[in-house]
């Protein structure tokens, strides 16, 4: 990248099973206030560009994301954009904006209130509109078909999946924002009944309400604000066909392609935060990224401990940023996903400033 891009602020709400009467704007506001405070600005007028990620299907209304803009106080007019995707892709757009020289700083945020609807069924409507959406096949069932392929071929065993869950819950004990945490043994988890076989409930990320926000800027702006920062040295994404039968669901071809494009150097990663909504998908990602045992995977607990649709991807980047700024890591990888069975994947590499 010609222009050094730095992450200077991040904040995420707690992952709540139900945010009660709070609306989306009320979920976003505290996180925006938090990132403004971290860099010492007062509102969205103090950055050059704003980009958000959300999904109208979750609110059940057309252009529902516009209400999210109310949280910004967009008067006088601001430069603003939106992606109908996880906010990790809003981050990608903001990076492009800065790299093109059209902005020096950007605010990125993502939010969702998934609890009022039936999320796995809502997600069925992102599928092929003639072949799949009319069958109302939910996101959990699709992931179960993927897990079965892996189990049948002997790529993983049920105990490997339970080990991912046990690790997530254990790491999440330290994470005050997590929804699910605690000490669970693999055998405890395997005693739980099957949910959508071969998946158990614990293999599936919970449904969560909340938001996260981030501020990025050029290096000179970070120095002007005089705040600690992490350098975003690479970000890229790839997508696979929407035809699930044509994909090899037991691996992640698109993740491999991004890793190659970015030269992630998996031998020098202190941490990796992976957006794996299902336990077996974390195993797919670890393998596709060729992660080493020395790399600390999902120290936050990952999304099995709390999954903010449309914000979890941005939060993975934020979790890596937090640990770099705290001095716990000097180089880290963040991953975001979208679509059924890891269809679309984004990677970001962060380094100490």
């Amino acid at each position: 990248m010609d222009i050094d891009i730095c992450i200077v602020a991040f904040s995420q709400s707690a992952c709540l099973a139900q945010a009660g009467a709070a609306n989306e704007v009320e979920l976003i506001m505290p996180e925006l206030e938090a990132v403004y405070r971290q860099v010492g600005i007062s509102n969205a007028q103090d950055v050059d560009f704003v980009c958000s990620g959300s999904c109208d299907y979750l609110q059940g209304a057309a252009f529902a994301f516009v209400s999210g803009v109310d949280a910004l106080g967009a008067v006088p007019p601001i430069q603003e954009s939106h992606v109908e995707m996880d906010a990790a892709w809003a981050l990608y757009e903001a990076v492009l904006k800065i790299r093109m020289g059209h902005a020096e700083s950007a605010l990125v945020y993502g939010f969702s209130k998934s609890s009022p609807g039936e999320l796995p069924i809502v997600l069925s409507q992102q599928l092929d509109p003639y072949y799949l959406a009319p069958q109302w096949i939910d996101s959990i069932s699709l992931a179960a078909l993927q897990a079965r392929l892996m189990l049948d071929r002997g790529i993983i065993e049920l105990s490997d999946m339970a080990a991912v869950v046990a690790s997530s819950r254990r790491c999440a004990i330290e994470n005050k924002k997590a929804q699910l945490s605690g000490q669970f043994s693999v055998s405890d988890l395997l005693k739980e009944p099957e949910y959508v076989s071969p998946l158990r409930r614990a293999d599936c990320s919970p449904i969560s309400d909340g938001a996260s926000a981030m501020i990025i800027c050029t290096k000179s702006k970070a120095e002007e604000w005089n705040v600690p920062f992490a350098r975003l040295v690479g970000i890229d994404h790839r997508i696979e066909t929407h035809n699930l039968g044509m994909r090899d669901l037991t691996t992640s071809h698109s993740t491999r392609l991004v890793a190659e494009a970015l030269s992630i150097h998996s031998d020098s990663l202190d941490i990796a935060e992976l957006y794996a909504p299902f336990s077996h998908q974390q195993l797919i990602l670890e393998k596709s990224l060729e992660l080493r045992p020395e790399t600390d995977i999902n120290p936050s607990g990952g999304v099995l401990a709390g999954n903010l649709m449309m914000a979890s991807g941005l939060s993975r980047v934020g979790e890596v940023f937090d640990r770099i700024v705290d001095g716990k890591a000097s180089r880290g990888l963040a991953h975001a996903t979208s679509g059924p069975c890891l269809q679309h994947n984004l990677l970001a590499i962060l380094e100490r400033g």
Partner: protein
Amino acid sequence: MSILLVQFLRVEGLVEDLFLQKEYELGFTYTRSTGPVVGKFLTGLKNKKIFGNRGSDGRVIVPPMEYDPETFQPLNDFVQVSDAGMIESWCWVAEPRPAHPSAVPFAWVMIKLDGADISMIHHVVTDEPSRVVTGARVKASWIDQPVGLISDIRYFVLEK
């Protein structure tokens, strides 16, 4: 109009005369073509036939795709395949959701139909769940009067 007046009209049976009423169904006011590829498949279903098409590498894709995802070439070499095939992957839904196509427990399946190289997603209904395994043979059960939708295949059943 005041509420009192409306109440008066209602009592006198005059409301229907005063207000125009019409049933209204919320929906698109236009129709659209499903095109030569998806349309070929859906029209096939209407005749209880299943069509796929060949991808750039010659593999038979069912249901057919408009473009090859690797080469981006338009695909139009259609092939009729069997309505029976083999389970490639499955999951058991013990508690169907209201939106699901079956109210009784069922299996979502990836099925490779005979004559196809790519598996399609549908569901199997059976009262013998233990027979739903990878490699099991299944056959389509058609609805009586197909209309040209994926749901013309009511579900797949296990072959004897």
